[in-house]
């Protein structure tokens, strides 16, 4: 049985535009309402996510010492890859 459990999670993001016009995400709100502060963005590049299924600007974010990818799609939605496939 193919699971319909999606590995692509659209999230709410708070972001700022810098005076130079760069878009930097600051917080991610997870499905359950928890808010995560993004300490640092270490890399931004266009990349696809085969796991979640999609493409966009990929922000490599450091959150509480852990690295996670946050994607900004061309339709202005943000998504992250769900960590585990098990329900």
């Amino acid at each position, binding site marked *: 049985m*193919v*699971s*319909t459990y999606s*590995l692509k999670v659209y999230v709410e993001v708070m972001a700022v535009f810098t005076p130079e016009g760069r878009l930097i995400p600051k917080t991610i709100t997870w499905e359950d309402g928890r808010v995560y502060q993004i300490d640092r963005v270490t890399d931004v*590049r*266009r*990349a*696809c*996510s*085969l*796991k979640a*299924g*999609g*493409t966009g600007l990929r922000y490599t974010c450091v959150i509480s010492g852990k690295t996670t990818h946050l994607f900004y799609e*061309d*339709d202005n939605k943000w998504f992250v890859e769900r960590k585990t496939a098990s329900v």
Partner: protein
Amino acid sequence: MDRVILHSDANCFYASVEMLHRPELRNVPMAVGGDPAARHGIVLTANYPAKRRGVKTGMALWQAREVCPEIQFTSPRMDLYLRFSAMLREMYGEYTDRIEPFGCDEAWLDVTESADLKGDGEKIAHELNRRIREELGITVSVGVSYNKIFAKLGSDYKKPDAVTTMYREEFKGKIWRLPASDLLYVGPSTKRKLLKLGIGTIGGIAETDPRILEQHLGKMGGILWAFANGYDTSPVRVENTHAVIKSIGNSVTTPRDLLNEEDVKLVLYVLSESVASRLKKNGFRCRVVEISVRDNGLFSFTRQKKLEQSTDIVREIAENAMALFRENYSWKAPIRSIGVRGAELVTAEFSDQLSLFSDPEYRRKQHRADEAVDDLRRRFGFYSVQRGIMLTDGALSHIDAEEDHTVHPQGYFGQ
């Protein structure tokens, strides 16, 4: 100095975009096709596992299921594919501004200028190929050559996800043994004529006296001979982004089969209204009207007609469509789906040659009448105003004309 031309072709484009977004479809035979619930949808694109099982573009969904019972179908999401098409172009734009799209999943790039800066054509091709896979999550095959025809043959040569060069010193070995029908513009009828001359390969065309080819194929014979020998010098045409819309068309699979001319006329009017209204919305007029017809068996055809004057007038589009239909359909079977398309678009500023019989004042009135109808419909809804003919069959006139924003390949020689 030789030009450096790339031809980039996204592999199984619609299917690849779907597989990226829906991981569960990646390793199973699947195809993108008209609404599987509706009758008589067709396969638009199949992925490789499905193709290996014999599924082909244009097959009815039921036929595809016959050759591959476990195939999964998914409905097309054109807006998503067009977004990917735009992202591809954006990436090509990092290498050159000389980009000529051919359909929404193919493009020629003239990188002669940037070849010095970014390395030679082959290196750029490999970089594009890798970046598209990593950044967009789909794959392309890229051909590299010194002319557009060979570059295209290069992108066809090895699929998926590959780069093939077709340089001067290579093309005889790689291209000449290919079947003649691989060459752009060798369709079934040209292929038959060539076979009669004993020519089955591209090399065969190249090594035949061009005068003999012209004798049998007309002007096209000479052109094909030049193509086969690598003498194609046609430029990569730079286009502005608006020109991406090549034609505007609407088609429909009707709620019941069309049985007679009256039925057809009604539907053609409904479709023509929608085409004309979309032409106006985009500031275009068309110089060619095209119809496509599919009967309830396997027979289908498209026919075009060049207009004396460009138009966005419902009545002119519909009457030309109807004339095309009368000339080309002999009613061996009822009709299942039908489409109208306006092509060779010109902007509203384009001025036509006035002909002896054209009546500019009458046309202006027609135009104003259409505009008034469009305006009423904008304000009061589509069915607030209807043509008399549409009251003859409620079901047929309430069909939902399917907007098909296929970006059509332009003719190779432009217009």
